[in-house]
């Protein structure tokens, strides 16, 4: 028997993963949650039919969205994580002893519940004493905060579903307000390859540029995301993502990583010409 899970990356392109069995399927108040077992990618978490993570390549995403800001800003102690109910981002952050507080705001408790059961490799550190989980609307949570965090990580779904509010100018504005004067916001910025995604990427980049004094984009190769090519946004009030990278300090931590290295950190901010053009177009 052949069982395939397919995700449309555009109406004319689909990416298919052979599935051994379906482990979980539930319609929550916000979205449909599915977890599959697959031969190539291990367990796969899909929300509303979009792949959120696979056991095989989640390390790329989770390392790049966390270690880049952590290696730049030596004083990060209080962290706010938006989305990321699977726990992968929290797992990476808890590896730093200097981190004192991680507030995780996830709208959908079902995602956390499912990941605790079926994706323990990601969810394993959600019970760390520094982690507090809030099941709330992120906009509602953040607009009550002022100068409270050193780092905000926005690990959202794509901007066409229930996460739409996390790509808006009001969201970036309240994040700015919730950060300390040297704070950093890192967000998943989608893919620049297919036109539909690229336009959404440009829209949100423009809004971030209008909100933060420093705004740079960096990239990573993530096989199961659209075009296998993914972007992150680095927005900051003070630190420059490359000029302020403290290689020695990070190496001294002796953290073992599988994708991130300080050398790759610098390289990830070197973007292809077409993408530089796209970003410049909205920065003017």
């Amino acid at each position, binding site marked *: 028997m052949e069982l395939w899970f397919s995700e449309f990356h555009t109406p004319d392109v689909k990416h298919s993963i052979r599935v051994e069995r379906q482990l979980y399927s539930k319609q929550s108040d916000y979205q449909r949650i599915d977890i599959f077992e697959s031969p190539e990618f291990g367990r796969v978490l899909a929300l509303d039919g979009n792949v959120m993570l696979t056991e095989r390549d989640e390390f790329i995403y989770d390392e790049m969205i966390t270690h880049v800001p952590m290696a730049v800003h030596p004083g990060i102690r209080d962290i706010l994580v938006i989305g990321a109910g699977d726990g992968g981002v929290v797992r990476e952050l808890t590896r730093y002893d200097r981190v004192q507080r991680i507030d995780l705001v996830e709208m959908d408790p079902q995602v956390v519940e499912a990941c605790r059961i079926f994706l323990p490799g990601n969810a394993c550190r959600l019970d760390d004493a520094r982690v507090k989980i809030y099941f709330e*609307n992120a*906009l*509602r949570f*953040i*607009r009550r905060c002022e100068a409270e965090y050193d780092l905000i990580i926005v690990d959202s779904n794509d901007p066409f579903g*229930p996460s*739409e*509010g996390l790509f*808006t*100018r*009001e*969201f970036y*504005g*309240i994040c700015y*307000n919730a950060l300390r004067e040297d704070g950093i916001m890192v967000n998943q910025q989608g893919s620049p390859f297919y036109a539909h995604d690229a336009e959404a990427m440009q829209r949100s980049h423009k809004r971030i540029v209008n909100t933060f004094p420093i705004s740079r984009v960096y990239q990573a190769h993530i096989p199961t995301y659209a075009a296998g090519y993914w972007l992150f946004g680095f927005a900051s009030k003070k630190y420059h993502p490359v000029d302020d990278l403290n290689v020695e300090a990070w190496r001294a931590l002796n953290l073992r990583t599988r994708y991130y290295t300080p050398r790759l950190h610098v390289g990830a901010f070197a973007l292809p010409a077409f993408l530089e053009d796209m970003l410049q177009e909205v920065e003017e």
Partner: protein
Amino acid sequence: MQNDSTTKTELDQNRAPIYEALERFRQMRVVPFDVPGHKRGRGNPELAAFLGQQCVGVDVNSMKPLDNLCHPISVIRDAERLAAAAFGAANAFLMVGGTTSSVQSMVLTACKRGDEIILPRNVHRSVINALVLCGAVPVYVNPEVDQRLGISLGMKREQVQKAIREHPGAVAVLVNNPTYYGVCSDLRAIVRMAHEAGMLCLADEAHGTHFYFGDGLPVSAMQAGADMAAVSMHKSGGSLTQSSLLLTGPGVHAGYVRQIINLTQTTSGSYLLMSSLDISRRNLALRGREVFRQVVAMAEYARGEINAVGGYYAFGRELINGNAVFDFDTTKLSVHTLDIGLAGIEVYDILRDEYDIQIEFGDIGNILAYLSMGDRSQEVERLVSALAEIRRRYHTDGTGLLSQEYIDPEVVTSPQQAFYADKISLPLRQAEGRVCSEFVMCYPPGIPILAPGERVTGEILDYIEYAKSKGCSMTGPEDPDILRLNVLK
């Protein structure tokens, strides 16, 4: 309550006779050698692609199986009976010319040339337009004004009583139920006073459809015993834009109302609009209470959150004072903005231009966000967050901001006489002291600053210039830039 015709039929609110007839009609695959000429969209493929085959396929003409809006005898009549029952009216009329057509039909039914009609000055332009058409003369009851918010409230009972006493020959009293901001007058008392004086009571319920299906919402016109009500189904009722209902009580002759409607109504009533009324009425009758309970809860939540931001004042039931604010419609989310140092219209513009959020309107001191059955909590969170951001980024001490003042109009002649009189066009400032022959208003909300037949004063001209400078969209005069006004010779 119900007249003979409605009690004879079994009224089942699960039915939607026009919708059902259109579904049957679709199955029949009738060959069209009648209008409309696009012939189910075949003749206009671009339009069909844009609106969808489902939609253009039922854009059809009146015919036997689908009844005729000008003289309903089958499915439209049945839909109107169901609507009447759902709204607690003796009769209901499906309207396809917007609530403007409902308001005008209401006024034209009640008034003839020279008749007096008692009404608050903060009526929608459609009311005064109807006076231009029929030649009735307005007797304005000055609405109370909330000085802090700069908004017109409802009519006080004593003021209405005084107008009735001073104009015993008036034929009707017209009431906003509620105003754009959600403020209600004491409708039951006004109905009683009007009836005791032998006058009709008419209600403009453009913003009150949900009163018929809400718990804890203000009283609806039909429940209060009013004689006619213009109900904007396309606002809180969920039907398509331009569809509306006219409701009448037992004291109004339905056949005469139909004749009045037919004076100005199209003979090609749109089945898209009529079916949307039919389906929306069914939805309201079956699920309206639950739907509006959620809308109220969402609006109350948003009010609390916006007030927690600081600076803004999202007002609600605390305005109720037993008279000029007899009741308040809690689904309305109106926010006073002057204390953050921005005019309402400025917040309205920033929300649209910078945050991609379109709200209903902004005036000098307030904004109104329209919440309805289609809203979800995530969008409400965006609105509240955007308001918090606007405060953080633009907050000023507010010097130089004007509050909105109610300007007591001086009616010199009837709207109809002024509209049709010989006139000249003068530069705005030179019009001072003359009698205006046209409307000036901010749209929305569409409540006239000047109406035909009223004296132009310096105070009014100051207000017009200030509203223009703040970016209010001004309409009414022949001169689209409102640099000149038409006044009586």
